[in-house]
């Protein structure tokens, strides 16, 4: 979607009394936003539904009985609600692409026991269009040019010092999650050599491993970057700082198993009986923060065998630690 389209949508959302919006800069629209509480909006919906165009339709309706093919933005409109819808659109686009590509049906692995869950195929995303990709680019530039590099996204500034392994932000690190939620282009995100011109002393300083970890984790959201192969083996060399850094669910168990030997996503998911999304987020963040690396030599991954002797103690102790 072009920048002008984004501006138009944002204007539409902010303006009261508008019923529908058609983007005119696209020959075939991908997205249709309609307020179907309104008769005009309903007319437009039926027009498009009957036209046979493959549309993703967003509804601004408050109604409960919305058809399944329509992604609903609930009123009142909030940033979170719009982001949720954007994510649904993206997922919908991915699944449509798969259908068009004639994706083969999943083959059941007969070696697996019926009680074992089938590992899901992780969703892929292109990190270069996210803050994660922009950050990587900036760190690389700072590293090769041996100079501070400044990332600017609207009013947000991040100063990268690869030589000192740190970054300075003109905003709270709590805002990082928000920056990772929307797609970025070179137009929206400026990367250049230089320092931040700051009028306040309220800048946050953060280490690059922590910044890279957080950003990759927030951008991944259970998906896998295109440059990470789902079936490749990766080694976790060091644990993340799990008492202070943000982390996905079950991060402790993933780290403990993965630190024992190189492993792949599906194996970890199977052995720990965890959703593959958790593993994808963890691996993405670990690789970006240099805690993990890809193994060129694929070795046979032997499942971890626990010693039964202390299992009762560990169960009791973990229960006690978690309860406290």
């Amino acid at each position, binding site marked *: 979607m072009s920048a002008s389209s984004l501006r138009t949508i944002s204007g539409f959302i902010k303006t009261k009394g508008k019923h529908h919006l058609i983007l005119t800069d696209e020959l075939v629209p991908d997205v249709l936003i309609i307020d179907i509480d309104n008769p005009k909006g309903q007319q437009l919906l039926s027009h498009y539904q009957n036209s046979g165009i493959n549309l993703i339709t967003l509804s601004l309706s408050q109604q409960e009985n919305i058809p399944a093919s329509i992604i609903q933005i609930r009123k009142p409109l909030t940033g979170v609600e719009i982001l949720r819808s954007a994510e649904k659109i993206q997922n919908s686009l991915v699944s449509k692409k798969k259908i068009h590509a004639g994706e083969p049906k999943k083959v059941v692995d007969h070696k697996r026991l019926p009680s074992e869950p089938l590992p899901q195929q992780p969703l892929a995303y292109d990190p270069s269009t996210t803050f994660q990709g922009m950050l990587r680019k900036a760190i690389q530039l700072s590293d090769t040019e041996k100079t501070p590099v400044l990332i600017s996204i609207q009013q947000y500034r991040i100063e990268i010092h690869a030589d000192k*392994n*740190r970054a300075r932000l003109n905003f709270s690190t709590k805002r990082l999650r928000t920056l990772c939620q929307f797609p970025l282009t070179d137009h929206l995100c400026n990367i250049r050599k230089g320092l931040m011109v700051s009028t306040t002393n309220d800048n946050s*300083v*953060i*280490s*690059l*491993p*922590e910044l890279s970890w957080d950003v990759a984790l927030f951008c991944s959201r259970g998906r896998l970057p295109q440059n990470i192969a789902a079936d490749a083996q990766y080694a*976790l*060399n*060091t*644990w993340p*700082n*799990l*008492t*202070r850094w943000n982390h996905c669910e079950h991060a*402790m*168990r993933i*780290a*403990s*198993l993965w*630190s*024992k030997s190189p492993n792949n996503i599906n194996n970890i998911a199977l*052995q*720990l009986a965890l959703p593959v999304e958790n593993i994808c987020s963890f691996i993405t963040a670990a690789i970006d923060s*240099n*805690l993990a690396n890809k193994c060129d030599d694929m070795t046979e991954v032997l499942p*971890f065998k*626990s*010693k039964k002797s*202390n*299992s*009762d*103690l*560990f*169960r*009791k*102790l*973990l229960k*006690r*630690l*978690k309860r*406290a």
Partner: protein
Amino acid sequence: MRQYKIIFSGPVGAGKTTAIQTLSDIDVVATEARATDKVKMIKENTTVAMDYGRINLDKETTVHLYGTPGQERFNFMWEILAQGALGLVLLIDGKSPNLLDDIENYLSAFADFIKDNPVAIGLTRCDLLASECLIPWSSIHEKLRKNGLSAPVFQVDARNKQDINTLLEALILSIDPTAE
């Protein structure tokens, strides 16, 4: 009666006694004496033999927590205390200018034990770091890699139950990641 042991070690003033106090179900038995050497600059009293605390899991199962004395001249105690332990919790002062050397020294002092048993490292007192100073994560990670270790290293506050519990949880899961 099943009895297990976990060792807490690290330099003087890193928070070993406090961490054991945070975890223990009983009042910690400390062998403290008035500091007379350079430790006096850091704190008035220091552990000379060991600290002792206990986690009572049930009537049958107890985990004993032993803290080693920090000063190197008492290091003959370290090996004695570590015998038969489930694992080692290493607490290192995160704001010490000798942070990396401290890690190196303790890893080599416990090298024989670490070969067969897990270690979890807690970096304490990091909240006292100046805002411009950061934990040198990359150097710490590099140090562990050189020692062939992939151990958990967490920033902890020895007074904070959740932090110390998380560190201990990591130690247990390092032994058995499938434990629940």
